């Protein structure tokens, strides 16, 4: 899609629209309610005490990070598989992968930080080289590499292709991180919510966790939409800059 045609539908280019404003305000309100539920209303845990309140931010951040990394992988696969046959040469898939990847890295960083703080309370140390923590740290580093590839100076299609391959390679680590607590003996506790109805969390605490998952998902969706539109604006600016440079060069040729 050319810059000129993109300029034609300028309303779609703004990072803000009525729908995203509504989403943003609902997300913000949900986060406020979530903080109230997590810090004030939900009860203290019989074993973990007040420290359980970190669960309501720690679990949703990794939930959002997993979802966003999976979205990055799917968009990257679609870029490689169907990108060349599309009218926009797969730019949509590439932008989606980039936006989701960046949001995922932010939330994974928050997972690591909140996990370290929680570990300080329950284990007495910020960090242990156990399977869950180590694989999560590796995942964080691999996706930092993915973002670095996206920002490397290169021809846009070559850069997008390299980034898509890196995203697919990095995605291999997602199930390893998730199942690490089942596959190896770890200091990290097993999943709080399970599909076999043996969840370790119930009642008000379960409701608070579910609400937190919803609040973080809304905020992540808002961030992703805005980041996607920002990537699009950056591309148009790049194209306009190139077009200006070409026309200036042509004008020089005419005057010479």
């Amino acid at each position: 899609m050319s810059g000129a045609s993109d300029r034609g539908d300028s309303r779609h280019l703004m990072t803000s629209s009525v729908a995203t404003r509504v989403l943003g305000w609902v997300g913000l309100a949900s986060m406020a309610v979530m903080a109230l539920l997590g810090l004030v209303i939900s009860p203290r845990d019989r074993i973990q005490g007040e420290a359980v309140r970190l669960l309501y931010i720690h679990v949703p951040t990794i939930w959002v990070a997993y979802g966003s990394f999976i979205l990055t992988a799917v968009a990257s696969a679609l870029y490689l598989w169907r990108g060349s046959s599309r009218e926009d040469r797969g730019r949509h898939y590439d932008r989606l992968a980039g936006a989701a990847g960046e949001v995922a890295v932010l939330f994974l960083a928050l997972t690591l930080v909140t996990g370290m703080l929680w570990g300080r309370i329950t284990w007495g140390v910020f960090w242990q080289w156990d399977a869950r923590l180590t694989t999560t740290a590796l995942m964080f580093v691999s996706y930092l590499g993915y973002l670095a590839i996206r920002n490397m100076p290169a021809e846009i299609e070559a850069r997008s292709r390299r980034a898509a391959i890196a995203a697919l390679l990095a995605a291999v680590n997602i199930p390893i991180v998730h199942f690490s607590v089942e596959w190896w003996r770890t200091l990290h506790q097993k999943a709080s919510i399970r599909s076999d109805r043996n969840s370790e969390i119930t009642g008000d605490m379960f409701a608070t966790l579910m609400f937190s998952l919803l609040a973080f998902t809304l905020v992540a969706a808002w961030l992703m939409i805005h980041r996607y539109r920002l990537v699009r604006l950056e591309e148009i600016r790049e194209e306009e800059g190139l077009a200006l440079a070409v026309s200036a060069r042509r004008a020089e040729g005419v005057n010479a």
Partner: protein
Amino acid sequence: MDSWGTILLGYGITFGAIGVYAYSILSRSRTIGHELGIGVPESSARPHLAGPGDLDEPDSDRSPRR
């Protein structure tokens, strides 16, 4: 640090980081939007992106003063 201090630090870092990231996205998009003249009133658009019609505006500051 007691557990409440650590808990509040965790919430503060989480909300703070999300807020800073959201602000950086909005700020950058507003800057680029102004550069490209997208989504801003015509009068606020940068001069090099303004259409040629602006130069012929009778009430423009560029009009010769008597």
